[in-house]
C-alpha cells in the first residue's frame, strides 16, 4: 500500500499539496465563527451532487417538467427525499450566506488587503440568488410559474436593453419550452460553473491572506487540521441534520398544481425574496429592478474603502444590520398582510385542492402526452367549481363562498346552493324564516311573493310537522347521488300526502294549486316534477323563464342555455357539480 502512495506522491506531489491544505495556520486558534465559509462550501457541494442526481429525472419542457418532477416525487423510490434535500439545502444556503457575510463584516475581514475577496464573495452571493431564482421555476408548478413571471418582468425595467434581456432569458415573448430549457441550462450549467470558478478564486484569495483574526486572540495559534476542521465538520453536520429534519418533516419539497397561464395564482417568491416583493408595493418597479441593486452593488464596492477608518467600519456594520432589520421587517409585513387577506388564503387553499385533485386523477388515468395541466382543464369537478364561481357566485353562494372557497364581495342575492335539492336543503327552504332570509330568497322579489306571504308564513303547527315529509318526497325526485332513494311504498305514501286535501293553508292554497307534480296543469309556479334531478336542473339552467319554471315571474336568473351564455356541456357539468354532494 505504502508503495502505491509513494509512487503516486512521486508522480503528483500530492502529500505536499495535502500538507499545505491541512496545515494552514489558524492564528488565535480554531473558532466557531470561522465555520460559515466551510458550511457554504459543503452546502454548494451538496447542491451539485443532489442536483446532478435530480438531472437524471428532470425533463425541461412545458409538457414534461411538472410531470417528471411529479414522477420523481411520487413514483421514484426515495425521490421525494432527494428533491427535499436539494430544496431545503438551497434555503439553508441563503441563511449561511447571511451569516458568513455578517461574520466577515463584523470582524472587518472585508478591508485591505482582502477587498478583492469581499467583492468576489458579493458576486457569489449574486450567483447563488440567481441559482435559487432559476431553480424556483423548474418544477413548472403554479407557484414557480407566476412568481418567475414577476421576476422576469422586472428585468424589462433595465433601461434600453431591458426588454431584450427579458426575451433572451425567457426564450421568447411568452413562457414555454424555451423558458424551461434556458432556465435549466442556467440553473444546472452556467451558474454552477460560474460559482465553481468563483469558489476557487475565493478560497485561493482567502488562503493567500490567511484568516483574519479578530483581536484579542483568545488562544494560541493552531492549525486548520484537525482543530478547525472538527468545528467546521460539526457545523456542516448540524446544517445537514437541519436539512434532513425539514425534508422529513415536510415530506420533501412542495409541488403545486401544474402551471397554467389561465388559472390565476397569487405570485409570491421564495421567502428570502419576500422583502423585495413587499418593497415593490411601495416603490416603482424601476427602483426594485435597477436603482436599488445598482446602489447596493456600488455600496458593496465602496465598503472596503469606507471601512478603512473606525467610524467607516462602524457605518458599514450599521448599514448591513439596517439592511437585515429592514428585510426582516418587510418579510414579516409581507407574511402578515397575506395572512390577513382572506382571498390570499383562499387562493392557497384552492391551489392545494388543485394539487391534490390532479394527483388523484393522475393515479386513475395517468398523464397524457399533452401534460397534466390538461387533466385539470377537462376535469368536471374542477370545471364545475370554476363555472359556479364565474357564472353563479355573484348572486348565489356555495357553502357561503364562491364554489372554490373564495369569499365573494357582492352581497348574496340568490339562494345558497350547497346541498341543493337535498332533504335538508328543501326542509330549510320550506321554513318561512329561512325562505325570506338571504340564504334563500331574501335577496329576490320572491321574498314578498305568494309562497312567502300566503303559504310559508301561515303554516299551522300541524302543517309544519308535515314539512319534513314533503321535503323527503321532493328531494327523492332529485335522485341525488349521495341520498338513498325511497322505496316505492314510501313514495306512494308521501305522494298521497302531497295531494291530501287536508293540507290546505289558511287562505286555501295547497302546493298543487301553484306547482305541478307529475301532472300537466302548468301551474304558474315552477313545475316540481323531477325537481332537482339531472334533467330538471339542466332544463332550469337552460331557461328559467320557460313556462315550466318561473315564466315571466323570473327575477334576474340568467337563461344560460337560451341566451348562449353557457354551452350544453358546461350546463351539464355545472348541474352535475351542484348536485354532487351535501352541504358542509
Amino acid at each position, binding site marked *: 500500500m505504502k508503495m502505491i502512495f509513494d509512487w503516486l506522491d512521486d508522480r503528483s506531489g500530492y502529500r505536499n499539496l495535502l500538507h499545505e491544505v491541512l496545515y494552514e495556520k489558524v492564528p488565535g486558534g480554531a473558532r466557531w465563527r470561522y465555520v460559515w465559509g466551510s458550511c457554504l462550501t*459543503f452546502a454548494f*457541494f*451538496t447542491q*451539485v*451532487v*443532489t442536483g446532478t*442526481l*435530480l438531472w*437524471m*429525472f428532470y425533463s425541461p419542457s412545458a409538457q*414534461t417538467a411538472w*410531470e*417528471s418532477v*411529479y*414522477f*420523481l416525487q411520487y*413514483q*421514484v*423510490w*426515495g*425521490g421525494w*427525499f*432527494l428533491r427535499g*434535500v436539494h430544496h431545503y439545502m438551497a434555503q439553508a444556503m441563503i441563511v449561511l450566506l447571511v451569516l458568513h457575510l455578517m461574520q466577515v463584516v463584523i470582524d472587518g475581514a472585508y478591508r485591505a488587503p482582502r477587498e478583492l475577496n469581499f467583492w468576489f464573495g458579493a458576486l457569489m452571493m449574486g450567483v447563488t440568488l440567481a441559482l435559487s431564482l432559476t431553480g424556483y421555476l423548474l418544477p413548472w408548478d403554479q407557484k414557480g410559474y407566476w412568481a418567475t413571471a414577476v421576476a422576469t418582468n422586472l428585468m424589462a425595467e433595465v433601461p434600453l436593453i431591458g426588454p431584450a434581456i427579458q426575451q433572451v432569458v425567457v426564450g421568447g415573448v411568452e413562457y414555454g419550452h424555451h423558458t424551461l430549457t434556458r432556465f435549466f441550462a442556467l440553473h444546472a450549467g452556467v451558474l454552477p460553473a460560474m460559482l465553481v470558478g468563483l469558489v476557487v478564486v475565493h478560497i485561493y484569495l482567502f488562503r493567500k491572506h490567511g484568516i483574519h483574526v479578530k483581536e484579542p486572540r483568545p488562544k*494560541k*495559534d*493552531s*492549525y486548520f*487540521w*484537525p*482543530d478547525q*476542521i*472538527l468545528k467546521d*465538520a*460539526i457545523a*456542516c*453536520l448540524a446544517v*445537514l441534520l437541519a436539512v434532513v429534519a425539514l425534508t422529513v418533516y415536510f415530506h420533501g419539497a412542495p409541488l403545486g398544481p401544474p402551471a397554467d397561464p389561465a388559472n390565476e395564482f397569487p405570485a409570491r417568491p421564495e421567502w428570502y425574496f419576500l422583502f423585495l416583493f413587499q418593497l415593490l408595493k411601495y416603490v416603482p418597479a424601476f427602483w426594485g429592478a435597477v436603482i436599488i441593486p445598482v446602489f447596493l452593488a456600488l455600496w458593496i464596492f465602496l465598503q472596503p474603502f469606507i471601512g478603512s477608518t473606525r467610524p467607516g467600519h462602524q457605518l458599514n456594520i450599521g448599514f448591513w444590520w439596517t439592511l437585515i432589520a429592514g428585510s426582516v421587517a418587510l418579510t414579516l409585513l409581507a407574511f402578515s398582510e397575506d395572512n390577513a387577506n382572506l382571498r390570499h388564503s383562499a387562493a392557497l387553499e384552492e391551489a392545494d385542492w388543485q394539487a391534490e385533485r390532479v394527483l388523484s386523477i393522475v393515479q386513475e*388515468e*395517468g*398523464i*397524457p*402526452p399533452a401534460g397534466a395541466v390538461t387533466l385539470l382543464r377537462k376535469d368536471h369537478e374542477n370545471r364545475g367549481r370554476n363555472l359556479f364561481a364565474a357564472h353563479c357566485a355573484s348572486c348565489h353562494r356555495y357553502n357561503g363562498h364562491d364554489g372554490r372557497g373564495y369569499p365573494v364581495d357582492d352581497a348574496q342575492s340568490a339562494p345558497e346552493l350547497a346541498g341543493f335539492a337535498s332533504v335538508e336543503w328543501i326542509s330549510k327552504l320550506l321554513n318561512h324564516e329561512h325562505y325570506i332570509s338571504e340564504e334563500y330568497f331574501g335577496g329576490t322579489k320572491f321574498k314578498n311573493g305568494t309562497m312567502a306571504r300566503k303559504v310559508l308564513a301561515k303554516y299551522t303547527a300541524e302543517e309544519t310537522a308535515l314539512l319534513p315529509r314533503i321535503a323527503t318526497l321532493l328531494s327523492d325526485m332529485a335522485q341525488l347521488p349521495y341520498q338513498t332513494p325511497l322505496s316505492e311504498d314510501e313514495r306512494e305514501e308521501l305522494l298521497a300526502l302531497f295531494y291530501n286535501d287536508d293540507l290546505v293553508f289558511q287562505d286555501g292554497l295547497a302546493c298543487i294549486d301553484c306547482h305541478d307534480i307529475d301532472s300537466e296543469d302548468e301551474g304558474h309556479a315552477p313545475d316540481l316534477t323531477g325537481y332537482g334531478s339531472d334533467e330538471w336542473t339542466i332544463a332550469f339552467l337552460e331557461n328559467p323563464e320557460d313556462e315550466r319554471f318561473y315564466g315571466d315571474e323570473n327575477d334576474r336568473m340568467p337563461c344560460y342555455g337560451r341566451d348562449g351564455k353557457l354551452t350544453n356541456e358546461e350546463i351539464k357539468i355545472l348541474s352535475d357539480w351542484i348536485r354532487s354532494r351535501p352541504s358542509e
Partner: protein
Amino acid sequence: MSDFNEEESSGRRKFIRVTTIGISAACGIFPLAAGIPALLDPVKKNSGESAKVPWSKVAPFASLPEDGSPAKFEVVQETVVDAWTTYKDIPVGAVYLTRKEDEVIAFNLKCPHLGCAIDFRKQTNDYFCPCHNSSFALDGSVTTENSPSPRPMDTMETKVEKGQVWIRFQQFRPNIEEKIPLS
C-alpha cells in the same frame, strides 16, 4: 506532528482526528447517499413483476399470405406507460407473422443477438440480420454455423379471434441462449 499539541494526551488527539474524519466523511457521502435509492429505482421496479403482458390486436387474419410466407406488421399497444406519460394506441415494435393452418406464428423483428432489425429475404426465403449476418429459417431457427445469434428468433404468444390476430408482444434479453422476457 505539531509542537503546541505536545501536552495533550495522544488519546485525546486521536479522538479528535477520528471524530473529524468520521463526521467529514459522513457529510461528504451524504449528498450521494441521498440519491442512491432514486438512482437504483429502475432496477427495483424491474424485478419480479413480469406477469401481465397485454394482448394487442395486430392485423386481420386474412391479410396474412396463405402460402405461409411472412409479413411484417406494426404492433400497436392500447396503453403504454413511459415513466410519467401514459400513451394510448401507439406502436411499440414490429413482428413477422406467418400462417400455419389456422394459427399464427409471430417473430419479434429484433435480432436475439444485439437487437438489430431482421430482414426477410424473398430470394432465399429466409430471415437475415444485416448487422452481424445471423440468418434464420422460416421457422425461426438459426441456420448459420457459428451464428452470432445465440438462439432462434423470439416467438410470442398469439391467438386468432373473430378474424383478428392478437399478440402478447414482448422484448427479450439479447445475446443469451435462454429466452428471458424483459418486463
